[in-house]
């Protein structure tokens, strides 16, 4: 019986594995290999330089700057995204009976997630435009002209303006995830807690949060991994400017490859990013592990 099972499974699995090997695993291996070479990317001429790319990376200030931005966003993005998503989800689920027009809100909140990141980036460039953008125009209109900053052009605000856009796009997704999680919590628990004497806040802290933990854990890991990427949004909105104030490692890597024609160096950055992301994911998985709940 068992042998028959594998004879059926393998032909189905094989094409997918093959594609995966060719388009995912091979490029990884290739990148690792290329990181030990100096290569302009145009011809097949590669010069073996051992760990030189990595040594260079270690001393590269621009790399450090980009990495520090990723690190800051690594803290801020999960925190803000999950908090907001939780808040909206709690309002949405509102006593378990749902809100009127629930489907409408679900669509509206989720919609940014459906849009292409490039479109989102371009859209917000217009919104953030210092003169004709709707944000600054709106602020001036209500008398808060002092708050109308040159968002994408300022070294102080650029990174956070981009971060805000990332949060805007992803909150809806996590809100929907949390709503689904909250709605699967049996209503009985809240009634029992109310009789036991729990306030709304205690109910949230003692019932919703622990029972939602698996969903929150998934959210943290996804957002953290995304925080180490952010290539598209940064490349579209600011290209890392002004003066690398909004740069991230992924975009820096792109610059090294396609602007400076240093493919070996870029590969080394890629490998470092791979290792960092991998370690982060494992760390987060281990730290956030809890016993599996049944209810």
């Amino acid at each position, binding site marked *: 019986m068992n042998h028959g099972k594998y004879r059926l499974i393998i032909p189905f699995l094989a094409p997918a594995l093959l594609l995966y090997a060719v388009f995912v695993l091979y490029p990884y291996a290739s990148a690792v290999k290329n990181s030990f070479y100096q290569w302009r990317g145009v011809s097949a001429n590669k010069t073996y330089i051992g760990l030189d790319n990595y040594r260079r990376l270690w001393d590269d200030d621009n790399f450090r700057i980009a990495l520090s931005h990723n690190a800051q966003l690594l803290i801020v993005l999960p925190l803000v995204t999950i908090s907001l998503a939780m808040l909206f989800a709690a309002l949405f689920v509102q006593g378990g009976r749902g809100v009127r027009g629930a489907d409408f809100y679900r669509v509206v909140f989720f919609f940014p997630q459906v849009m292409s990141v490039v479109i989102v980036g371009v859209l917000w460039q217009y919104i953030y435009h210092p003169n004709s953008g709707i944000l600054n125009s709106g602020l001036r209109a209500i008398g808060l002209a002092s708050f109308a900053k040159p968002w994408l052009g300022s070294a102080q605000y650029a990174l956070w303006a981009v971060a805000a856009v990332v949060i805007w796009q992803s909150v809806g997704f996590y809100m929907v995830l949390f709503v689904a999680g909250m709605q699967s919590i049996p209503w*009985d628990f809240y009634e029992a807690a109310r009789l*036991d004497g729990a306030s709304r806040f205690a109910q949230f802290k003692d019932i919703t949060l622990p029972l939602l933990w698996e969903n929150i854990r998934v959210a943290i890991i996804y957002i953290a991994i995304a925080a180490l990427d952010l290539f598209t949004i940064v490349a579209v909105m600011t290209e890392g400017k002004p003066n690398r104030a909004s740069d991230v490692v992924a975009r820096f890597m792109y610059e090294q490859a396609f602007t400076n024609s240093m493919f070996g160096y870029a590969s080394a950055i890629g490998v470092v990013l791979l290792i960092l992301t991998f370690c982060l994911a494992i760390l987060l998985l281990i730290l956030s592990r809890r016993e599996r709940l049944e209810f």
Partner: protein
Amino acid sequence: MARVIFDNVTKRYAGGVIAVYQLNMEVLDQEFLVLVGPSGCGKSTAMRMVAGLEEISEGRIIIGDRVVNDLPPKDRDVAMVFQSYALYPHMTVYDNLAYPLKLRKVNKQERDRRVREAARTLDIEPLLDRKPKALSGGQRQRVALGRAIVRNADVFLMDEPLSNLDAKLRVQTRAELIKLHERVSTTTIYVTHDQVEAMTMGDRIAVMSLGVLQQLDTPQRLYDVPANKFVAGFIGSPSMNFLDVTIERRNGKLYAVAPGVNLEVPDFKAASLERFIGNKVILGVRPEHIIDWNQANGIAAADSKLPVTVDVVELLGNEIFVYLTLQDGNTITARMAPDARLQRGLTLDVTAAPEKLHFFDPETEYGVY
């Protein structure tokens, strides 16, 4: 310890559905009152209004001497055992029991003492470190009870707590609950759809149907003197048989008559049934009161009998249920001793002692007494 009073309580949902209608009753201090009725009769809603989990549309509910209409659940001093137990899955049994005390800021030592005392009462001390998923149904039920008693609340509310248990465990736990009530003596409102649970556990029983209280009485009185046809048919299993009969006077006595039916009416009911002479009335007789005429030993008059044909016989070991077909094609159920030699197709005469007959007004369905 407190009494609970329902003062003309009505529950109306948006859309006009009336779940409970003008409920008036008092649960006495330390009483074990059972709210019983079929699904949708309003018993759970009535109990949830006491808990504060449902808004009261009209009327007042009084616990002790406080009107609790506007009090949130946590201020009413009621503890509830849910049908699904609602044990917090992420907390140990100890934490589940301690949670209500923690919320009320009881200090750690006192908390520990009360948790362990409750655990001892319910014999769940060895389970304190386990999580609910590692407990059997019966154990979870006891933890749910523990969470209620640890609070020393004025009133216990139990929402069909035995429904999720298998038959044997249910019987066992029923006895345990009764013993617990004797020990702890807290006023308890117990909701069930099972009339056997109601009869065996309640000091008094409130029978409800379609949101209306039908009768509030002791188990024995509900059985002997049902207020209406609904209560008569609901209490007792298998349920009472109902026949449409006409009252006739013959030889100075009253008889309940129908094609193939001729049963003598007891003297003490003659006066109340006078007004039905020549008219239809509903006759009720419980399966356990139907006896083989040959074994009647003069309980009934010689001409008080029903000729029947045996349809189905169900053997239960200690007794048999017999489904009998009357002359006009209607079926009645009888409960008889296991040695009655009956099989399908057999014809015989059955009767019932006159004082065991019940009568109900065909229009109002009230009992005629």
